[in-house]
């Protein structure tokens, strides 16, 4: 068996695709499923005929739908065509009307089932694809009868929906079709038989039964009149009927289940202010009989009614249930594992309930995503058939999967999807908010007894939503709720980072053991201190408390103790490094933002314990921000108005006893003529890289201009690592240098303020400068820590000792020693490097540096930076 799925685009493309499949030449039987949300009934029949003409041996099985499913995704307003080719198996299909057109009456389900059994079912039938069109009130009876007539045969499909987005319209225009006709009152069936054929059918709902058993005591058609002799609406809302007006979603989140069919929820529609005769028109053939029998009921009175989709009988037992994310996840995981391990999974049918698709979008998306890449194909059904415990059930809110095939075949699935439940958390949060709202509403109204009953139910639900699967520890949703309601604003998030590494080395048993120990320690510690602990997922734990219950220092101290405890060495467990991030003053909405910011800081500094204060994070220093913007303006103005100007400071040659060298220093001038020094603008410029680059270029041009072809004086200019990495700037320097008659008068001072990560680049630059005849100097030698590395890899011509060392050389022996060391190194290595001392402010310093053989002195003693060169000896 093999299956191809494709979207219908045009007849031409369809015929081309079908021709490519070359089906007529293959011997097996062919089933073509069409689920369309874009064709009217007649168009659909036309499409079926078109296909039948191309593939004469095909069996056509068509339904309308509101959205189609293909390969793990669903889409609205599309038409999907799925072609399945059998190897040996047989496909039988038939459309059976449930309305007798001649006398306008319902065909008894028993007759239909008899016909199906006779026409479609064989001994080796493995799956019955079923599509019921229109509002067939006796669907439940029909399915039940099927269970009796051919027990154990899984059915797939359900009640067909039309292309609409509202529940009320859903079944009205739904139809089934084949190449001959369409019908809004018929059941279309297709059976798969064959000795080699095997099938597996399962469903996932995510429902959890929580309530006591109650009995339906009166009904009319599909309307529930009384439950436990209490008005049905009142019973459903625990005596607070107005709740349904405010919270219609309650029907979906807290549905009933039949006690004998606890796996699937009962869908109920809430019809306020209406009468039975409006809901069930007297003239509709399906209803006639009931009106005849139930003359005791006032069918005209207006009231609030709860209606299921299908006829329902008194005496059925029901219980309250609840749908929530953890259960959805576990149901799906279970189903997926079984589908995955089913050997002959050649074809996957996937159907999902309309209610689920529209009300639990995140659930639907998530559960489908596991079947991405497979050939899963199907559509949304108004009511789906689920095969549970050997019986077929009709439900509106389930995700059903059938796997069928004749030979072993491995589908490609996407099992990873199931371990990422973030999208479910969003749904969870929504549901939780809903429950809290309901709870508040309940608190405000009703009497004590009702409130208590409702509260107990809601609390059960909330517990389900709020606790992680580990040992009753509350989850992230609970944390956020508690932050909101109880005002927890001191929070410590604990996490263990190297999980992937752990998994690659240790057994899962070993990891589990370590996890249990880790969790246990955290939980016990928190309980001992009466803090509140949450499992946020994976290894991530949060410990929270209110700020009025514990002071920050105490909280931080306790967390430090816990960290030490977790570090404790033991042979039984893997050594883990938990990181602790204390967030003070957090709120539900900024918690992750603060945490992520803090994590970034922690990563940078490589620390495992960090305290961040929300109030400080948000407190911008207004003054510095204003200053920053002012400086940006100044820079901008200077660049565009030619106000980036070089100042020149003379450097004294200690041998020649004269100033014959200058350093070019950058200054900015603003509109008012105020001069700005680098320390006021350089940081800002650097953080806006383009500014910095532009300023560098201007400086280079101007300096080269000023010293063009001068042979008696030389100049040095500052070049940062950033500049060297910028090809524009480097090329500009090369170009200018190559045009110079005396290139050796130009010295490039390399600043070491950015980390050098690429020495080859730097060395390349230096070599090129040397090739062009230029000189290189290392600036601020002694200020960083990596300078010796510089010294060895760069053949620099000058070495400028950092000013702070020079300034202190008269008062600090240590500083003096460094100067001695540098000059000693120069002598030892016989290096011809020249040594420059900056910040030479007085005679004492000058004497000292000269005594160590420093070649050049720069400082206020000799010259101050000025807009132009001032040639004067001392």
């Amino acid at each position, binding site marked *: 068996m093999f299956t191809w799925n494709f979207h219908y685009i045009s007849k031409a493309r369809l015929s081309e695709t079908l021709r490519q499949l070359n089906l007529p030449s293959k011997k097996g039987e062919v089933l073509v499923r069409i689920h369309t949300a874009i064709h009217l009934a007649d168009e659909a029949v036309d499409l079926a005929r078109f296909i039948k003409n191309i593939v004469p041996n095909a069996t056509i099985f068509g339904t309308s739908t509101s959205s189609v499913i293909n390969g793990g995704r669903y889409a609205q307003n599309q038409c999907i065509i799925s072609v399945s080719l059998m190897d040996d198996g047989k496909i039988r299909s038939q459309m059976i009307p449930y309305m007798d057109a001649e006398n306008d009456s319902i065909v008894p389900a028993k007759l239909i089932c008899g016909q199906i059994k006779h026409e479609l079912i064989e001994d080796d039938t493995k799956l019955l694809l079923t599509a019921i069109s229109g509002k067939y009130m006796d669907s439940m009876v029909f399915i039940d009868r099927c269970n009796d007539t051919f027990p154990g045969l899984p059915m797939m499909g359900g009640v067909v929906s039309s292309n609409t987005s509202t529940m009320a319209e859903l079944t009205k225009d739904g139809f089934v079709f084949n190449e001959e006709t369409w019908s809004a009152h018929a059941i279309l069936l297709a059976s798969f038989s064959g000795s080699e054929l095997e099938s597996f059918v399962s469903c996932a709902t995510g429902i959890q039964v929580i309530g006591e058993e109650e009995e339906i005591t009166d009904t009319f058609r599909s309307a529930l009149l009384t439950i436990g002799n209490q008005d049905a609406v009142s019973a459903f809302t625990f005596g607070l009927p107005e709740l349904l007006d405010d919270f219609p979603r309650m029907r979906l989140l807290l549905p009933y289940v039949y006690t004998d069919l606890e796996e699937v929820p009962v869908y109920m529609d809430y019809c306020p202010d209406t009468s039975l005769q409006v809901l069930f028109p007297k003239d509709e053939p399906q209803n006639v009989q009931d009106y005849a029998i139930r003359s005791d009921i006032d069918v005209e009175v207006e009231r609030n009614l709860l209606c299921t989709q299908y006829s329902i009988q008194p005496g059925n037992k029901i219980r309250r249930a609840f749908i929530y994310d953890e259960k959805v996840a576990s149901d799906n995981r279970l189903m997926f594992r079984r589908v995955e391990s089913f050997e002959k999974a050649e074809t996957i049918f996937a159907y999902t309930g309309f209610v689920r698709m529209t009300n639990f979008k995140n659930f639907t998306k998530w559960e489908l995503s596991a079947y991405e890449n497979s050939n899963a194909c199907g559509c949304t059904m108004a009511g789906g058939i689920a095969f549970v415990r050997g019986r077929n059930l009709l439900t509106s809110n389930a995700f059903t999967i059938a796997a069928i095939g004749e030979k072993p075949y491995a589908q490609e699935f996407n099992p990873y999807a199931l371990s990422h439940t973030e999208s479910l958390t969003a749904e969870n949060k929504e549901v939780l908010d809903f429950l809290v709202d309901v709870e508040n509403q309940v608190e405000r109204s009703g009497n004590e007894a009702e409130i208590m009953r409702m509260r107990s139910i809601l609390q059960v639900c909330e517990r389900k939503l709020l606790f992680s699967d580990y040992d009753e520890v509350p989850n992230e949703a609970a944390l956020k709720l508690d932050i909101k309601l109880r005002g927890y604003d001191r929070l410590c998030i604990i996490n263990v980072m190297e999980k992937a590494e752990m998994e690659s080395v240790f057994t899962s048993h070993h990891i589990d053991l370590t996890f249990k120990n880790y969790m246990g320690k955290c939980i016990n510690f928190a309980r001992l201190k009466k803090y509140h602990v949450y499992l946020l997922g994976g290894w991530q734990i949060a410990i929270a408390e209110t700020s009025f219950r514990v002071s*920050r220092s105490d909280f931080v101290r306790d967390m430090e103790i816990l960290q030490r405890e977790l570090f404790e060495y033991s042979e039984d467990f893997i050594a883990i490094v938990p990181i602790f991030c204390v967030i003070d003053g957090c709120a539900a909405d900024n918690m992750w933002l603060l945490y992520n910011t803090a994590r970034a800081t922690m990563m940078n500094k490589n620390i495992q314990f960090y305290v961040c204060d929300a109030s400080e994070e948000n407190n911008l220093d207004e003054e510095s921000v204003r200053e920053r913007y002012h400086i940006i303006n100044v820079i901008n103005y200077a660049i565009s108005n030619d106000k980036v100007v070089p100042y020149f400071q003379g450097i004294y040659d200690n041998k020649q006893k004269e100033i014959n060298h200058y350093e070019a220093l950058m200054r900015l001038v603003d509109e008012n003529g105020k001069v700005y020094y680098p320390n006021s603008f350089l940081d800002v410029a650097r953080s806006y890289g383009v500014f910095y680059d532009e300023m560098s270029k201007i400086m280079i041009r101007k300096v080269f201009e000023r010293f063009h072809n001068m042979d008696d004086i030389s100049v040095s200019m500052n070049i940062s690592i950033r500049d060297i990495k910028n090809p524009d700037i480097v090329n500009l320097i090369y170009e200018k240098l190559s045009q110079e008659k005396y290139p050796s008068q130009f010295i490039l001072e390399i600043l070491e303020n950015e980390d050098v990560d690429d020495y080859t680049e730097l060395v390349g630059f230096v070599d090129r400068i040397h090739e062009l005849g230029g000189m290189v100097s290392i600036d601020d030698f002694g200020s960083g820590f990596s300078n010796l590395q510089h010294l060895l890899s760069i053949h620099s011509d000058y070495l400028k000792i950092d000013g702070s060392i020079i300034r202190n050389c008269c008062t600090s022996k240590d500083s003096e020693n460094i100067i001695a060391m540098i000059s000693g190194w120069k002598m030892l290595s016989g290096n011809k490097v020249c040594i420059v001392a900056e910040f030479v402010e007085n005679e004492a310093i000058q004497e000292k540096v000269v005594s160590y053989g420093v070649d050049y002195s720069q400082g206020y003693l000799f010259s101050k930076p000025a807009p132009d060169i001032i040639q004067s000896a001392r």
Partner: protein
Amino acid sequence: MGKDNSKKTIALVVENIFTDFAGGLIQSLANAIHLYKNINLVVIAGQYDLTRTLVPQYREYLTSYNAIYQLQQQCKFDGMIVCLGSMVPANVELFDRWVKRNQHMPTVYTVCEIEDRVSVNYDNTTGIREAVDYLVNFNGFRHFAMMGGREDNFDSMKRKSIYAQSLAEYGITFEEKDYIATEMFVDTQEEARILLDRNPDVQAIFCVNDSVAIGLYQEMARRRLVPGKDIMVFGFDNTKTSTRMIPSLASVGAGNETMGKKALELLLKMIDGEQVESATVGTRFYGRESLPYSMYEFSNIDWRNIEEETIYNMFDECFYRYKPEFVSREAIDLRRLFKEIITHINQALRNQYMSSDDFNETKDLIRIFFENGAMRYTDTERFLTYINRLDTSINATQNRSNAGHIEYVNRLFSYARDCVIHSLSKTIRNKNDEQTRFRRDLLDFLVDIEDADAEQDNVVNRIVANFEKLNMRDAALFCFTQPVNYEKGVEDFFPETIRLCCLTKSGELHVISEERRLGRLSEMYQRVELAEIYKECATFPIFYKTRYYGFLVCKIDSMITTSGECIAQQIGRSIYLLGEKLI
């Protein structure tokens, strides 16, 4: 590399650091600086030296001590808050010089008014009037008296006239016989005797400040008169003393805004170059046993539907020393915690049910409440009155038949009373322990530095080596290179440099290496080594007679304000005795 402009150092120049009034001001300032970033507070405290009864050697001591005021001239500060009430009149000339010298430094004066200067003063009117209103309207009193202050004291004169004015509005005459002036100190028994002799039928006496009431109490005790029963008594300043007196003294004090906070607010504006006007801080009347009065009656509270604001009012009324500026992210917000406790109790009352879990949780909160020093912000008598009132009020409104939860609530109240007693006894015990330890530490220190064997003849190094023994958590020792001789009247006599010898940080000793000790005196309070201490610190002079050796700078806590002077004195004395060799 410019200086960090955002960091500001502010000096608080005050007399008599150990008085309740100064303590309150320092505390309120220390709390207020936490509202701002990067502000350091340096307290420079001298001593009041103008009392009549001084023996000459003591006067000499105080004169030398007051040389410390030179620091505010010689050190670099961004602004100054001055609180030297009694120095103003007695030392007008000196004070004038100060004012002139500080003309360009932003300065805020407290409790005194100087022309063209920004000052913060008590709005004396509201509180005094509140008390008079109560006495006249509620008790129907007609005969009032007052123990006043010095003629030259600005506030005392103001208070007198307001008192007289308030009485006059009720048609009550306030004559000279109803009034007696005092020196505004505790030794007022004689004045009290005269006043009581003159007015045997007096019904209420207003004391110009809380200290004055002490003499009055003594005199009344001698005559077997009970304050609050026979004669109503109330004071001014609402100091801690007032709550410790027996019976506790009703007093007028600052309302929600403290003097320190207001002064700082003005000063910071001045530093930023804004024009500011002098301001007043509101006062209110705090009733106690000597004049029972309360702003709120809780008997009419509907416990089922209590508003959040009412709970906060209840808290403020009882824990009146707890100001909003105490609420920092670091510590526990007691107001909020109080609300939580009351909310728990309310819930029990509303639901007519309290689970044992809930009971235990509430009990735990009460424990935390008191463990975090709630009793620091009220006085016992006041608290007990309040809790009784609450208890009665709750019991009165509840239906006794369904009493499970009431039982719990009552148990919570008695637990709260237990906590109070426990916390008070702990405070007293700690105080005793602290004093014992202090004496022992000081003794150990003194003995050890006198160790004759010591090779070291440099006495400072001996002190440094034993500095830890003084058990001061955050303190720094500054010494000059040479002893400085102080001559009265000479200004700016401190040398330009001073050496930071050692410091303790969180109890840990850091000895500064020789070459890094020296620094400028003017930048003494900007040295990076003690950033943490400078957040709020007090300075004590180290001297003997007229020989000045240096300063002890300590982070402010309750112990240091009372013992700092003593420690500094002992260090000074030792340096003198051990040969004055400072390096």
